[in-house]
């Protein structure tokens, strides 16, 4: 699975959670760049992504992701 495919999944999951089809995640998108992407929604997002892609993050990783690109990198590493 390539980075763009992972990015597409992340975008779809977040759109679904925030019920906002205008969201378009990029590798350098940070949480504060997306309106209403607060901490509770972030957890829901991580859990939904895990279910969708069959991966599981460590809590420390989840807390440390600075942007979407780091999430993509983390997922790619788990899928390899």
């Amino acid at each position, binding site marked *: 699975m390539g980075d763009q495919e992972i990015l597409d999944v992340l975008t779809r999951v977040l759109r679904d959670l*925030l019920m906002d089809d205008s969201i378009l995640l990029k590798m350098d998108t940070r949480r*504060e760049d997306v309106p*209403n992407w607060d901490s*509770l929604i972030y957890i*829901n997002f991580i*859990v939904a992504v895990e279910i969708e892609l069959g991966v599981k993050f460590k*809590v420390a990783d989840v807390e440390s992701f600075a942007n979407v690109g780091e999430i993509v990198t983390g997922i790619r590493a788990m899928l390899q």
Partner: protein
Amino acid sequence: MSSATLASKTFDSDDQVFFARLSGDFNPMHMDPLAARRTQAGAVVVHGIHAVLWSIDRLVESGMVEGGISGLKVQFAKFIPVGETVHLKLVRRDEKSIRAELVSGGLRTTTLNLSLGTPKKADGSALPQDAPRIRLTDRPAVFVGLEETLGLSGWMDIAGPARSVESRFPHAVAAIGSERIAAIALLSSFVGMICPGLHSIFAAFEIDLLETPHDQDRLGFSVSGADERFRMVRMTVSGAGVSGSVQAFLRWPPVVQASMSEVSKRVAPTEFVGSTALIIGGSRGLGALTAKVIAAGGGKVVVTYATGRKEAIQLSEEIHGQIPRAVCDVIPYDARQDAAGQLKTLVADVSHLYYFATPPIARQKEGLFTSSLFDEFVQVYVKGFYDCCRFLGERGSRALTAFYPSSVFVESGPLAMAEYSMAKMAGEILCNNMNRSANRVHVIVGRLPRLKTDQTATVPPVNTGEPLAVMLPEIRRVQASRPGS
């Protein structure tokens, strides 16, 4: 994205009582100001489901829900404090769905997505056959660990709530029926009273409306999964014409600081003899811990509270229970009010001031900077501190050493806490200036890390330090400084 305001409402305490009686959700977060201030919400908040039902009622009344509702998906993102006006905004409407949101104080608190159409055919109950009937009391279930919730299931009769919903939500009842509205109302009880119960935060739910309910007169739930990492629990719900899932968080219970007996093992009994400490904001958290430490070391303490009188008295009793001869007085004090007026009757000759007064720190806000929030922090952390120091410095017979608890956030604060960090930095500058001026107050500033207190017991969890291990050396540093004595 443009959105039109359809309706506005300010939920008050009567609304809280009404919905608690209707749904059975008497969780203190919705009912008890003192208990609610020790939760992540920091104040009494509206039942999220109440706001949802009010929204559906308004949407139906507006005529936008022609053809019926076939499903409902809701995300709760922020709390709605009681007394704050909430606005229902229409975000989008097409032939298949309506998306709306509730906005309070400029923040989106709740997102609703109504699927339009006729209810779906029921596919049978997803609940265990042997699920027990639940009879609610006014005391929520208490779970501390998520593992305790695994395997939980049960059901509740909807007849009572179904009789009460029509008067309050007539349009919603006309659209989808009193049983389904009652079933949605009961979701509040499932989360707030049963699972996770007392320490819960309702995060989201998604339900289909069913054409021929399998269990027409009851709503059941079953825990379908839990995630320990995030303290999150998932449930399936079924019955009374709805079927779907609910997601909630198990928040941390109020933090209990080290007991007097634990503190006494770490402090020599005469370590602080001869000192009298005024502890502003001492009824709980770091203030209460500081009071225990100084009392354990033989110092006299005067503990102030703003709203937590009961907690301050309990603290005094705990100190006296361990050290009967200890001196621990309790007085009210509001750091936003004039210090002289509140402390003029203080008998004790104070040698040390510990200033832990604080508003709630982690706040719901919009954007990078909210000036009213900054003003609120400055009022307490800067003006209130200076006012208190000035009065004590002028009044006392001996020089005063004051402890100013700053924060590591001054150096590396998260973006979401800009106002807090800025106010603490302003406080540090004030302290520095006070120490450079010729007055009888010497201030010691401690940049404290995030410590385990009610203020940091959040969902999602954050890494925090152990308060006693951090505070003990700070207190010894402050107590060792007795200028002019």
